């Protein structure tokens, strides 16, 4: 690490560490939680972490491709959340329960 001055002024490292932290929290959520909707939420959290590092690199390397990729990542995340929740509602309507334990009942 550079001198303590880097600790004071916020640089690219700080944004990357922040995005790494958020990414691991999201992946922990996916691994540990049973409720399907909370898993979808932690996937949103992971995608947010990716967005932070995209924008951080776009700002510090001063090219705009990162910011355009963020727009695309947001669209994909929203589409995935929409379809995921449509599935969750169907499962809830049939099984009155949204925990992952029930997924082995699905045939095929």
């Amino acid at each position: 690490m550079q001198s303590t001055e880097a600790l004071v002024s916020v640089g690219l490292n700080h944004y990357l560490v922040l995005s790494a932290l958020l990414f691991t929290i999201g992946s922990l959520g996916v691994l540990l939680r049973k409720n399907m909707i909370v898993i979808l939420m932690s996937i949103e959290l992971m995608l947010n972490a990716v967005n932070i590092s995209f924008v951080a690199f776009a700002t510090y390397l001063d090219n705009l491709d990162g910011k355009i990729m963020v727009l695309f990542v947001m669209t994909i995340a929203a589409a995935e959340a929409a379809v995921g929740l449509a599935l969750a509602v169907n499962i809830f309507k049939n099984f009155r329960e949204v925990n992952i334990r029930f997924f082995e009942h699905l045939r095929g």
Partner: protein
Amino acid sequence: MSELDILFYILSSMSVLFGALVVLTSSPIYSSLYLVMSMLSVAGIFMTLNAPFIAGIQIIVYAGAVLVLFVMVLMLFDLKRETKAFTKGRFSGFLKLVGAGLLCGFIAGAAYESVSLIMATSEEIPTNIAAAAETGFSPTTNSIKEISKLLFTKYLFAFEVLGLLLLVVPIGAVALSRVAGGTHAKH
């Protein structure tokens, strides 16, 4: 400690704290509300990264649309407080914890390596936007117009493919609700 740094430390600690609360709270309604707060603080972080347009879009798309759907669906389910929110398997739980720790270590290491890698290739990058402003290395000024110009020249194909994707998603969601047992099934 310029104004920008204090802002960064406040917002990043808020987003990490609320992100952790999303995963840890047992009742899903509270975790979705913590996720809203985490999204808003991430939008604030985009502001400190000199990307106000992306912050605005994040508030409209994520906090204003996606999470309204999450909160609405959770209210419809009306799940009470879950007792066994976390997977109960002792061995599998332990395995997952170790896996997650490894993942965290890899990512943190990759972050440090990539920065020094980039430092080596391109010329000296000022580590702080405020410092950058003084040294004349000013980030792109009115970047909102440059973003859209780049979007429609270089990334036009991706833009059209996204239009197609956004056509498929509603049709899929409606088809899902039409299937036997779905909410709008034809009975």
